[in-house]
């Protein structure tokens, strides 16, 4: 049992090390300006198009449910003027970046692992090597960069549509006026709350891209292997997103407190 755990731990540390190595070598291509912009924009549009619908539903539902759950309580306590602010704050700081990242991990991270995994089992990655082209430069850099850039954009969108959903339920079910909802948001939400969320989304995007590509490269054993990589890419990236979220949240809160307390 102990041996098994030790082996798993070893395996995990190894994996994290290899992913870091991949990220660093990608970064070195990035710094040297070796980016294929055509591919980058293609990947970005793929990520946007593929996840827009799911992010819409996630954002809308989250905003609506927040108000459903707390709206009536708040009205009873006479605190209806806080509802809009709480919804906006919860979305901007935590819910929008996290839920967007989890949805995109399921949709895009898995697609990356499947695509690269298929390239591995059909020897296309070997073919890239024989043509003297680095798969990191050709496949990893545009994908990770695209995910890192698209996640904040999708998060802004999730914020907006979440607030729209919240305001809709407030007006239709809880009897809070749109004006009071809006005033509450303006009084509570600060630009730095939004920026903190976007910074987290950027990091989540990097995690999704790196894990998706890494799991793809680690594929072996034909179609079954591709299936396994796909699943494990989603599981691992969601776990890493949740773990990273704690540390990033602590960081963001600390930065905010030390720079903006006065």
């Amino acid at each position, binding site marked *: 049992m102990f041996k098994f755990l030790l082996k798993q731990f070893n395996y995990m540390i190894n994996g994290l090390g290899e992913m870091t190595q991949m990220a660093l070598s990608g970064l070195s291509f990035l710094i040297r300006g070796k980016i294929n912009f055509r591919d980058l924009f293609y990947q970005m549009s793929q990520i946007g198009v593929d996840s827009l619908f799911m992010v819409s539903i996630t954002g809308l539902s989250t905003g609506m449910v927040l108000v459903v759950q707390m709206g009536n309580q708040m009205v009873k306590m006479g605190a209806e003027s806080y509802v809009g602010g709480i919804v906006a704050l919860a979305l901007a700081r935590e819910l929008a970046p996290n839920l967007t990242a989890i949805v995109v991990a399921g949709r895009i991270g898995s697609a990356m692992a499947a695509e690269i995994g298929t390239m591995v089992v059909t*020897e*296309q990655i*070997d*073919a*890239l090597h*024989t*043509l*003297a082209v680095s798969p990191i430069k050709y496949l990893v850099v545009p994908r990770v960069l695209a995910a890192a850039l698209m996640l904040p954009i999708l998060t802004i969108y999730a914020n907006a549509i979440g607030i729209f959903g919240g305001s809709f339920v407030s007006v239709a079910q809880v009897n809070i006026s749109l004006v009071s909802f809006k005033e509450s948001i303006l009084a509570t939400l600060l630009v730095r709350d939004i920026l903190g969320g976007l910074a987290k989304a950027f990091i989540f995007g990097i995690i999704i891209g790196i894990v998706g590509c890494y799991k793809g490269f680690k594929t072996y054993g034909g179609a079954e292997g591709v299936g396994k990589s796909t699943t494990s890419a989603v599981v691992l990236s969601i776990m890493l997103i949740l773990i990273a979220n704690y540390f990033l949240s602590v960081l963001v809160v600390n930065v905010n407190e030390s720079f903006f307390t006065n």
Partner: protein
Amino acid sequence: MKFNATSYADEIKKGETIISVRDLYKAFGSKKVLKGLTLDVKKGEILVIIGPSGCGKSVLLKLIMGLLAPDSGKIFYAGKEITKFNEHELNEMRKRFGMLFQGAALFDSLSVGENISFGLREHTNLSKSEIDKIVNEKLELIGLPGIAALSPSQLSGGMKKRVGLARAIAMDPEVLLYDEPTTGLDPVMVTIIDKLTLDMNKKLGCTTILVTHDMKSAFRIADKIAMHFNGQIIEVGTREEIMKSKNPVVKQFIDGSEEGPITISHATVEK
């Protein structure tokens, strides 16, 4: 045309050794695939490596290409020890090599033309019209003119192999490696691919290493045949020498008979 890749093999004359493999060992987990393999390839010749499926022939090609690292042993290309090369040096060397994979390994997100011109676009500053010209030339050469705009999924197995070959020769390589080019093709296509292999060798003058278990093909194209068995090269010779070989393994393999030293346990899954 020499593009901007470093050439190592210019000073080597035709008929002199260009690639030499010395005492190569490679294992995957507990499965020992190569056990002290030694082999010499002369410049300009067509060397066909035959052997039972799963004996590690493809692994040997991947080791020569630097796609895998050996456990021990050395590989020299034009006198340089490539097993000591770093990634950059390996890439410089790979620009002088072309490889045709078993399943052709075309990039399915790119068109046929983009596949063929991949190396040119990545490594040269040629204009689009010059690249298009080379693509059309290579398509002519493989007998499939005018298919540059198709996607690989629209091609048949034999066409894919031929496009894979066009991609491999796009940079005018010094060495061409073929990994079972005729496996899974109909007899007519096999003859066409064999003829192409001979053509490429003659027209481009490139050294050719071809891995196959198709004896008919081997006898049709080979300058020299090397028998790979049990992780080693057990016999090398011209077509006639191999045909008259006294070695029981070679004899059994040529005849395709069930009885002999090659048993079913040698035909395990190739990695």
